[in-house]
C-alpha cells in the first residue's frame, strides 16, 4: 500500500493528471465502443433473426428427422417446421399456381406475421401483428389471390383434397422477403398437409427447419451438435446470411466503430506517451534524491512499477466506468432511432477495456519510465547528470507494438491494423523529414521579419527536437480526426446513395411479352422511372463440357437442379464489374456465331461460377423448354446487391435468346402516394408479380440512421482524444517556455511580446502539423477506402486547407491559453514554481 500512498502523493504533485486522463480516455473509448457495438450487434442479430423468423434455419429438400427435434427439446431450443412448394389452388372454375407455405403452430419463432381483414390495405390501423400462423383448416392469403380466384374472405379454396377457409389477408411474413417467382402466397397450417394429399414422393418441396433459443449458449450447443448431422441436401442459414444487404451495412458500421475505437486508442496512446515522457523528465530529480538516501535501483524500479500498476488499475477501472456512462449516453442519444430493446453486453467489452488500459500502460508509460532507476544520485549535486531515457526508436517500437497488438485483437483484421499503423508511420516519418525542412525554412524567413516573428521562428528551430515531437503529436491527432470525418462522411454518403429516397422499392416480374407495352405505359403514365426492363427466359443447365449434370452435382448446388433466369443485354449493367474475362465489347462475337456449331457467349456471376466449379472456356448446355443451346463462359461479373436493381447470374449478348419464350422484369421506385398503382397492376395483370421492398428498405434506413448517429457521436469522442494529445504535446515544452518567458520579462519584455511569441510559435507549429496531417490523412483514407470499406478513391481537396487552418487555430489557441501563466504571474513567482 506504500506504493499507492506514493502514487496519491505524486498525483498531488500535478504531473500524473494527463497520464491518468489519457489512460481513462483510452479505456473509455474502447469500452464504450465495445459495449455499444456488442449491444447493438446483439440486438440487430436478434432483429435480423426476425428476417429468418428464427435464430437459425436449416433449408433442406427433406423433412427434419425426429432426432433433431428430440435433441432440440433436450437442449432447450424451440423449433418450428415449415414447408413451401408451388401448387394449384382452385375456387370453382378458377385456378392459380400459388406459392404454398405450410407452418407449424410455433411459427414464427422470431418476428411476427401481419394480417388484415381488408385486401390491399396500406392502413396500419387495419393491420394486425400476430406471433402465430393460421389454425387448422384455415388459410391466410395474398391480397392478389382474391381477384385472381374471384374469392373473398370466408370463402373456401381447394388445395388437393383439402378445403381451406380464407380467414385473413396475409400482409407481411417475417421471412417473406426472399424473391419468389411463382404465384400468390397461401399460408396454411402444417397439420393440413396430410389431408390435402398434395405432397407426393418427388414433389418439389423446400423444407425449412426453424430454431431459436432464449439462451445463446443453448443455441450454440445445439448448432455444434447439428452441424455434423447435416448432409449435402441441408443448408444452415444464419441471420447475417439471410439479409446480405443489411449484414453488409452492419459490417461496415461495425468496422467504422472499430476504426473509431482504434483511432481513439492511438490518439490516447500518443497523449499517454507524451504525458509519460513529460512526467519522467520531472521525476529524474526525485529519483536522484531517493537514491541519495540509499534507495537502491531495484527498489526505485519496484516503486515506479507498483505505482504504474496502481495507476493502470485505477485508470482502467475509472475508464470502464466512464466508458459505461458514455455508452449509456450514446444509447440515450440514439434511443429514438432504436426500435428494439437492447440486450445486455457480455464480459468481452469489459475485458477489452481493462486490457487496453494495461497494454497502453505497458506500451507507453513504462518505456518512458524505464530509465529512471538508472538515474545517478549525483544529479542532486550536478544538474547535468541526467540518465538518457530509452531511445526514441525503442519507445516508438514498444508503443507501436502495443497499438498493433490491440488493433489486431479488436479487429481480428490484419489489413485494418496495417492500414492504420502504416498511415501513422508514414505520417510520423514524413513529419520528421518535412517538419525539419519547414522549421528550417521558417527560421530562415523569420530572420527577415519583425522581431517577434524572428524570435518565435528561431525558437522553433532551436527547440527542433521538441518541436518535431509536438508536430508529430499534433499532426497525428489532426490527421486521425480528419480520417474519421472523411471515412464517416464517405460511408454515410455511400449508404445514402444506396438507399437514396428514390431507390427502387418494388420489383415487377413475370411480365408477359404481350403485357409489356401496356404495363410499361401504366408505369410511365404515373411518371415513374424504372431501372430498365430486362427480358429473361427460364432455362436449366443440363451438361457441362459435354458431361451431363450428375446427381452429385445436383446435390451440391441448387442451380444444377432448378430453372435459372437467363437474360441478355448489350451494355454492362450498372453496378456490375467484370471480374474475369471480358464484356461483349472485348470479344469477337462473330467468332461464336460463325463456329461450326453456334455457341452463345455467357457472362456468369463471379461467386456462382466459383461455387459451380466453372472456369473460363467451359461449355454449358442449357435447356429452355426442351430446346437446347450451348454457351461458352467468356467472363464473370461481380454484382452490387445493395442498389435494388435487377441482377442476373447469367447474361448473354443480344440476339441469341430472343427466340425463346420470355417474360420481362424491372425495378422501380413507387412513392407512398402512388402505392395504389400496385393494386392496379395486380388486378389488371394477374400474372404479373410485384415484390414490395419498401418495408425492408425502411428497415434498412432505420438501421443506417442508427449507425450514422452512433458514428457522429463517436467522432465527438475521438475529438476529445485529439484535444488530449494536443494538451500533452503543449505541456511537453511548457516549463522551458515559461522559464524563458520569465527571464524575458525580468529583462523588461512586455506581456504582448511574450504572448505574441507564443502565439506565433504555436500557430506556426500547428499549421505545419496541419500540412503534414493533410498528407497523412489523404493517404490513409485512400488506403482505408480502397481496402477496407470498398469505396471508390477520391481526392479530398478540403483536407489540404482545413488541416493547416485547423491546426494553426487549435494549437495556437491551446498554446496561448497554456502560456497565459507566463504573463499572469510575477517573474520571480514563476521561476520559483518552475
Amino acid at each position, binding site marked *: 500500500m*506504500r506504493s499507492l500512498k506514493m502514487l496519491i*502523493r505524486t498525483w498531488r504533485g500535478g504531473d500524473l493528471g494527463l497520464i491518468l486522463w489519457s489512460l481513462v480516455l483510452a479505456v473509455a473509448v474502447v469500452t464504450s465502443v465495445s459495449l455499444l457495438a456488442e449491444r447493438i450487434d446483439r440486438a440487430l442479430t436478434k432483429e435480423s433473426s426476425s428476417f429468418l423468423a428464427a435464430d437459425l434455419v436449416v433449408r433442406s429438400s427433406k423433412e427434419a428427422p425426429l432426432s433433431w427435434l428430440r435433441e432440440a427439446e433436450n437442449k432447450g431450443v424451440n423449433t418450428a417446421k415449415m414447408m413451401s412448394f408451388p401448387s394449384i389452388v382452385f375456387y370453382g372454375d378458377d385456378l392459380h399456381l400459388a406459392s404454398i407455405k405450410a407452418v407449424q403452430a410455433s411459427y414464427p419463432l422470431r418476428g411476427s406475421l401481419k394480417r388484415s381483414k381488408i385486401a390491399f390495405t396500406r392502413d396500419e390501423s387495419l393491420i394486425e401483428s400476430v406471433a402465430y400462423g393460421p389454425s387448422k383448416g384455415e388459410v391466410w392469403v395474398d391480397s392478389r389471390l382474391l381477384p385472381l380466384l374471384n374469392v373473398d374472405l370466408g370463402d373456401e379454396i381447394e388445395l388437393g383434397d383439402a378445403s381451406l377457409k380464407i380467414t385473413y389477408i396475409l400482409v407481411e411474413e417475417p421471412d417473406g422477403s426472399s424473391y419468389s417467382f411463382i404465384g400468390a402466397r397461401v399460408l396454411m397450417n402444417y397439420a393440413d398437409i396430410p389431408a390435402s394429399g398434395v405432397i407426393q414422393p418427388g414433389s418439389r418441396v423446400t423444407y425449412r427447419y426453424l430454431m431459436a433459443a432464449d439462451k445463446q449458449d443453448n443455441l450454440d450447443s445445439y448448432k455444434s451438435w447439428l452441424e455434423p448431422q447435416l448432409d449435402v441436401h441441408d443448408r444452415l442459414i444464419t441471420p447475417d446470411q439471410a439479409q446480405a444487404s443489411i449484414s453488409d451495412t452492419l459490417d461496415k458500421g461495425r468496422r467504422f466503430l472499430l476504426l473509431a475505437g482504434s483511432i481513439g486508442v492511438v490518439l490516447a496512446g500518443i497523449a499517454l506517451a507524451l504525458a509519460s515522457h513529460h512526467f519522467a523528465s520531472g521525476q529524474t530529480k526525485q529519483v536522484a534524491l531517493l537514491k541519495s*538516501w540509499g*534507495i*537502491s*535501483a531495484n527498489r526505485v524500479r519496484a516503486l515506479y512499477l507498483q505505482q504504474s500498476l496502481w495507476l493502470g488499475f485505477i485508470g482502467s477501472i475509472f475508464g470502464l466506468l466512464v466508458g459505461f456512462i458514455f455508452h449509456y449516453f450514446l444509447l440515450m442519444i440514439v434511443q429514438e432511432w432504436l426500435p428494439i430493446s437492447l440486450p445486455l453486453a457480455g464480459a468481452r467489452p469489459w475485458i477489452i477495456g481493462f486490457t487496453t488500459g494495461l497494454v497502453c500502460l505497458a506500451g507507453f508509460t513504462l518505456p518512458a519510465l524505464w530509465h529512471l532507476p538508472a538515474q*545517478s*544520485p549525483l544529479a*542532486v*549535486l550536478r544538474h547535468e547528470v541526467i540518465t538518457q531515457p530509452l531511445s526514441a526508436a525503442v519507445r516508438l517500437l514498444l508503443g507501436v507494438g502495443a497499438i498493433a497488438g490491440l488493433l489486431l485483437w479488436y479487429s481480428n483484421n490484419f489489413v485494418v491494423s496495417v492500414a492504420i499503423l502504416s498511415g501513422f508511420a508514414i505520417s510520423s516519418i514524413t513529419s520528421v523529414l518535412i517538419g525539419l525542412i519547414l522549421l528550417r525554412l521558417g527560421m530562415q524567413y523569420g530572420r527577415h521579419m519583425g522581431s517577434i516573428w524572428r524570435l518565435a521562428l528561431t525558437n522553433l528551430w532551436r527547440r527542433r527536437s521538441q518541436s518535431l515531437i509536438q508536430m508529430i503529436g499534433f499532426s497525428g491527432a489532426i490527421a486521425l480526426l480528419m480520417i474519421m470525418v472523411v471515412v464517416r462522411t464517405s460511408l454515410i454518403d455511400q449508404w445514402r446513395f444506396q438507399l437514396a429516397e428514390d431507390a427502387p422499392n418494388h420489383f415487377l416480374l413475370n411480365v408477359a411479352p404481350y403485357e409489356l407495352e401496356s404495363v410499361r405505359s401504366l408505369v410511365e403514365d404515373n411518371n415513374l422511372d424504372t431501372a430498365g426492363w430486362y427480358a429473361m427466359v427460364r432455362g436449366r443447365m443440363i451438361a457441362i463440357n459435354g458431361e451431363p449434370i450428375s446427381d452429385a452435382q445436383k446435390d451440391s448446388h441448387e442451380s444444377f437442379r432448378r430453372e435459372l433466369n437467363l437474360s441478355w443485354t448489350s451494355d454492362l449493367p450498372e453496378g456490375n464489374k467484370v471480374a474475369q474475362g471480358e464484356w461483349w465489347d472485348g470479344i469477337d462475337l462473330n467468332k461464336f456465331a460463325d463456329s461450326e456449331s453456334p455457341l452463345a457467349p455467357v457472362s456468369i456471376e463471379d461467386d456462382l461460377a466459383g461455387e459451380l466449379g466453372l472456369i473460363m472456356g467451359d461449355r454449358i448446355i442449357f435447356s429452355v423448354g426442351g430446346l437446347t443451346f450451348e454457351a461458352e463462359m467468356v467472363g464473370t461479373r461481380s454484382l452490387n446487391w445493395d442498389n435494388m436493381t435487377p441482377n442476373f447470374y447469367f447474361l448473354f449478348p443480344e440476339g441469341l435468346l430472343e427466340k425463346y419464350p420470355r417474360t420481362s422484369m424491372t425495378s422501380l421506385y413507387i412513392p407512398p402516394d402512388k402505392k395504389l398503382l400496385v393494386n392496379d397492376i395486380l388486378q389488371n395483370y394477374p400474372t404479373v408479380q410485384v415484390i414490395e421492398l419498401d418495408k425492408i428498405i425502411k428497415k434498412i434506413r432505420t438501421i443506417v440512421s442508427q449507425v450514422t448517429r452512433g458514428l457522429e457521436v463517436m467522432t465527438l469522442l475521438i475529438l476529445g482524444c485529439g484535444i488530449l494529445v494536443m494538451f500533452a504535446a503543449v505541456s511537453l515544452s511548457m516549463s522551458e517556455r515559461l522559464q524563458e518567458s520569465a527571464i524575458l520579462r525580468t529583462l523588461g519584455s512586455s506581456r504582448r511580446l511574450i504572448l505574441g511569441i507564443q502565439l506565433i510559435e504555436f500557430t506556426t507549429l500547428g499549421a505545419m502539423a496541419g500540412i503534414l496531417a493533410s498528407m497523412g490523412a489523404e493517404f490513409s483514407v485512400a488506403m482505408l477506402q480502397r481496402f477496407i470499406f470498398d469505396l471508390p478513391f477520391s481526392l479530398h481537396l478540403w483536407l489540404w486547407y482545413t488541416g493547416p487552418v485547423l491546426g494553426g487555430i487549435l494549437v495556437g489557441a491551446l498554446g496561448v491559453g497554456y502560456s497565459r501563466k507566463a504573463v499572469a504571474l510575477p517573474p520571480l513567482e514563476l521561476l520559483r514554481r518552475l
Partner: protein
Amino acid sequence: MIEVKNIYKQVNTAEGVLRILEDINLSVARSETLAIVGPSGSGKSTLLGILAGLDVPSTGSVSLDGHEITAMDEEGRAIVRAKTVGFVFQSFYLLPGLTALENVALPLELNGDDDALKTAAHYLERVGLNSRTTHYPRQLSGGEQQRVAVARAFACKPIILFADEPTGNLDTGTGEIINNLLFDLNNEEGTTLVLVTHEMNLAERCDRTMVLQLGCQVKDSSNTDLVSS
C-alpha cells in the same frame, strides 16, 4: 569517520582528459565539522559527491564509517548511504506533491519506519515549523523550505550530514537562521558535518576548512589557523 586517500577524478571530454580532482587526502573525525571552500569549478561539489558515495573517484579510496565505499558497487554504496548519510541541498529538493510533514517523513517511510510521521513532526517542531506541517512546498518561503529540508536530513539520524551550499539560494538573514539550525542540530545529534560553501562566515563556524583550487587541495587546516592566516 571519513578517510580519503589519494583521490583523483578525471573525465574524458572532447578536448581531452579533464582533471577535476587531484590527490585529495582527508580525514574527518566523528562529530567534526568540515567546510570545503574554493572558487567555482574548483571541484567542491565533485568532492562532496565522492565523499557521500554519490560518485566514484577515478582512483583512490574513500571510507565512510569504516565502509570502504570505493570498493563497492552502486547497490553497496546505496546501503551505506541509507545507514550513514544525510543531505541538505542548495535547491531544497522538496517533493511538490507532499506536505512539509510528508516530505520529512518520506525517507523514514521508505526505510520502513512505522513512527515516521511522529519523528517528522518532532523535527519540524525542532526547526520551528510545527504550524506549517500541512503546507505544501509552494506555500512555504525559501527559508521555510530549506528548514524542512534540514528537518528531513536530521530526521533520518545520519552519522554524517553533507550540505551543498545550504544557504546559496537564501538571503543573508534567512541563511543565518539555517546555519544556526544546522550547527545546533549538529551539536545536539553529534553528527559529522561536511559542507560546501562560498561563504567564509559559514566556513569559519566549522572546526576545519579545506580549500580547493583547480581540483587541488591547497589548504586543510583548523579554522583558528585559517583565520590567523
